[in-house]
């Protein structure tokens, strides 16, 4: 079953890390990505630019409205995602716990709605 791992962490905190610390975090993600690739469960994943680069779109009464920023201001922000094809929720949760942001943010694990065919 496919799950999307939504990676949440505190952008402001991440930005204030030193260059070396940021490199270290990237390296950790590299290790995780390699692991899930080797397990054969990796189907996708990307880091996202910070919410300062985000635009939110709504269409109300036929009118398109765009606002600067994420859909809501939150203490932690969506920083990236993985799509993993796992045997069960347990496997998904075990993998989610290994994603670096789980240590200082959180990972939301959501089953993907499979549209048959």
């Amino acid at each position: 079953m496919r799950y999307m791992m939504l990676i949440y962490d505190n952008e402001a905190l991440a930005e204030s890390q030193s260059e070396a610390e940021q490199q270290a975090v990237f390296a950790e993600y590299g290790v995780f990505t390699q692991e899930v690739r080797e397990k054969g469960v990796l189907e996708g994943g990307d880091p996202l630019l910070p919410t300062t680069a985000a635009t939110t779109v709504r269409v109300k009464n036929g009118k398109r409205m765009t606002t600067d920023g994420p859909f809501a201001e939150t203490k932690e922000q969506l920083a990236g995602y993985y799509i993993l094809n796992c045997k069960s929720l347990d496997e998904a949760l075990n993998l989610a716990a290994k994603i670096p942001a789980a240590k200082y943010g959180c990972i939301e694990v959501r089953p993907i709605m499979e549209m048959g065919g």
Partner: protein
Amino acid sequence: MGASRCDPSWRWVAESTAGLERVLAREAPRVRAGLIGRFRDFDLADDVLQEALLKAWQRWPQDGVPDRPAAWLYTVACRIALDTFKHHAVRRRVEPELVTALAERDAAEVEDTHLVARFDDELLRLMFTCCHPALALDAQVALTLRTLMDLSVEEIARAFLVEPGAMEQRLTRAKRKIRHAGIPWEVPNDHEIGPRLQGVLTVLYLVFNEGYAPTAGATIVNRALCREAIRTTRSLLRMLRGHAEAVALLALMLLQDSHADARRDAEGGLVLLEDQDRSLWDKRAILEGRALLEKALTLRQAPGPFQIQAAVAALHAEAADLVSTDWPQIVALYEHLVRLTDSDVVRVNRAVAIGLAQSPNEGLQALANLDGEEMRRYAPYHAAEAGLLYRAGRRQEALQSYRHALAHVQSGVVQRFFERRIAELERSTS
């Protein structure tokens, strides 16, 4: 007050002194903003914050970093302020009600879970206050560096080649002016915020530029200033959404900053854009800068100076080298910028672009229109002229212009650059 359990997100911090220093450095501006907002007194805020920081240094290595470091520092600092007031109240026997009122509010705030969010409001207010147009520009810059970026007076003085005593005076006068002129502690309303925000952005960009291309001193780049400017602009963007110029400023800073490693050679000398090894440019910074610029443009607000400058920077970032850069588009952007700012500095940049888009002689013509008292003291004007003359094959005249440029430059690094150019030209024309 006092640390309970150690939040795991701070674990990487408590493990080193350097880490602890960084937490405190990051939290201090917000806490300072909260204290200034509360007491409306820069110096009192500074004093009590210093004492609270000292306490943190003593306690946190043993107790662990508290759950909410900013709240801890703020609460401790307020208690110290309160003790000071009480002490004075007892001695002077005045305003006991004030002391009581402060004590009650103090107790309430310890419970306030929105305390840290309020700091963001205070920080935003502080930004607008420090950059109020009633203050002289150099006072705005000094105040911003001191209160928002937590630079010491010595560091600020050194960056601007001023005596620390003089810088101290500049800061004192600015703070006094805020008090006496009744400069408000507010984020401007929707009607006023446009030009006021432009003022804040201008100060932030000044700080960035002072880090990127120091006007004086021995280094090419003061990365700390660039980083602080970028960090503060990021905070601003998170607190104030929907302003294309602010988004564009961050884009501009990132796009410029992406060149930092290529700007210096092995001996620490200056390398001009045309000679830079573009493979050394920071691709991540360019990626983010371009994404931000694109977003700024989709906000569909009237293009301001930062959007235009960011667009120029993006054109450079996209080009493989000087020759394949879209110079006609850059000329058009500078035309727009001249119309907006009426700035001679921008006219010099435009002349250089015309020189590359059309011909060196046309560039020189554009430059000739600028001749004037102030331009004669402006080194980049002479440097631009020298470059165009050189390209037009007029080497003796180029030599003269480089000599003029050298005479008006304070930065040791830039001096050495011009000296090298002059030496090369002297050899080839003799």
